[in-house]
């Protein structure tokens, strides 16, 4: 059997098992809704204007948060990569905060900017910043030293060095950074929305959860996954084309 056939067979088995469990009555009612209910909830979502509003809020929070975190992360990573001493000084602190779950910084962020959209945006930026900074710094250190020496021998200014030498050499690592940053910004924003918010897809998921509308909850999570995995795949393809 070829790989594709195995995948299709697996999918069929999983879906059939799901349906069987849903109809068996083994679990509490509605904990595992039937595929038909989830499908219906999923398509109904698209006819509800509110979905688009919540999607818009989340998209703004992720987009703006990622943009801020990305720009700051690239700038910081660039300095940490080119200035060895500075890089070595900040590395343990950056690594330490980068490892910790960003969502626990939400209370600080909420104290600083309030509990509204700004707090989700800031958490998205914070989540994106660290992987982008670390990846950019690593990318800068791997730039071929010959290129850097050529630049210096041509007496390029610092700005020219950045735009003419480093930027083209860093392109693959910048695309990877964007992908990493995007993935973590999505998680940061949505977790913050689920914890405390009044709009966004995370809020919607939380509403369905607290009213025990399980099929709708599955539908929202399915939508989030399709968007996140889809965009990640697109960026991956873009990165490979380089």
């Amino acid at each position: 059997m070829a790989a594709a056939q195995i995948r299709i067979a697996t999918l069929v088995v999983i879906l059939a098992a799901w349906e069987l469990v849903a109809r068996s009555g083994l679990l509490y009612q509605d904990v595992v809704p039937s595929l038909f209910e989830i499908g219906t909830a999923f398509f109904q979502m698209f006819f509800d204007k509110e979905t688009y509003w919540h999607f818009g809020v989340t998209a703004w929070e992720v987009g703006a948060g990622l943009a801020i975190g990305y720009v700051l992360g690239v700038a910081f990573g660039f300095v940490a990569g080119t200035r060895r001493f500075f890089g070595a000084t900040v590395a343990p602190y950056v690594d330490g905060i980068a490892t910790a779950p960003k969502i626990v910084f939400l209370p600080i962020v909420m104290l600083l900017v309030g509990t509204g959209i700004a707090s989700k945006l800031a958490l998205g930026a914070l989540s994106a910043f660290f992987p982008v900074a670390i990846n950019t710094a690593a990318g800068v250190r791997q730039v071929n030293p010959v290129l850097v020496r050529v630049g210096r021998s041509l007496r390029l200014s610092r700005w020219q060095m950045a735009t003419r030498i480093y930027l083209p050499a860093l392109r693959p690592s910048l695309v990877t950074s964007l992908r990493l940053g995007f993935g973590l910004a999505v998680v940061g924003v949505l977790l913050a929305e689920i914890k405390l918010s009044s709009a966004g897809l995370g809020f919607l998921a939380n509403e369905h959860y607290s009213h025990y509308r399980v099929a709708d909850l599955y539908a929202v999570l399915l939508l989030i996954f399709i968007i996140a995995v889809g965009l990640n795949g697109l960026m991956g393809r873009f990165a490979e084309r380089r």
Partner: protein
Amino acid sequence: MKPALAGVLGVFSLALIIELAVQAGWVSSLVVARPSALPAAFMRLWSEGFVAGPVGITLAQAFAATGAAAALGIPWGYWLWRKPVLGEAYTPWIGAAFAAPTVLLFPLFLVLFGRGYATTVFVGFIAAVIPIVLKTREAFLGVPKVLLDVGRSFKLSGAALLRRVAFPAAVPGIFTGLRLGLIYALVNIIGMEFLIDFGGLGRIVSEMYFRFEIPGMYVAILLIVLVSWTFLAALSRLETWLRPR
């Protein structure tokens, strides 16, 4: 000057600036805790049992989740190597799951398991099992063919070939998977504890926030950063030490 010293000086200067800014009233002490208030807050958290116990609870969950993930993930990764067609079929899926925001599924786990350790550990398990499967398969794929051929030339049985040759050669790669798995499990479990106000370290942050104990909240967050970083550093050390030179 050494970078480590510069780092410590930098942190002290930053703390001093924050201290002065808060004391001068430029920043409200209801938003940013005075650094000088943190030691007392730490002692208070300690005496109320908010430090050692929660750290233990969180670490125990991370180890339990990773243990379960290893028990399932290592044989699974081995199997994906042993049967190349299965590896070819499933590895892209597992790779996609690695990039996917699986932690966002937690409301479903709350519905399935309720608000308790089952949910936090399960979230850790999901986070850990994916890198363990992927790295185990990679580790076996990386075993030099020569070693396997030598084993076969000694007419080792399949089980003996695995036990004597393939597995020992794959151990460093498998350990990388375990290290990643343990860190992902820890981080996701702490995040989950914060989100559902349950369990160890993460719950403390949430509790301090709702009590409006600002210095306590900062201490709890710093503690999480410290625990995550120590964990990461210790495991990296262990890995370099284990790797054959």
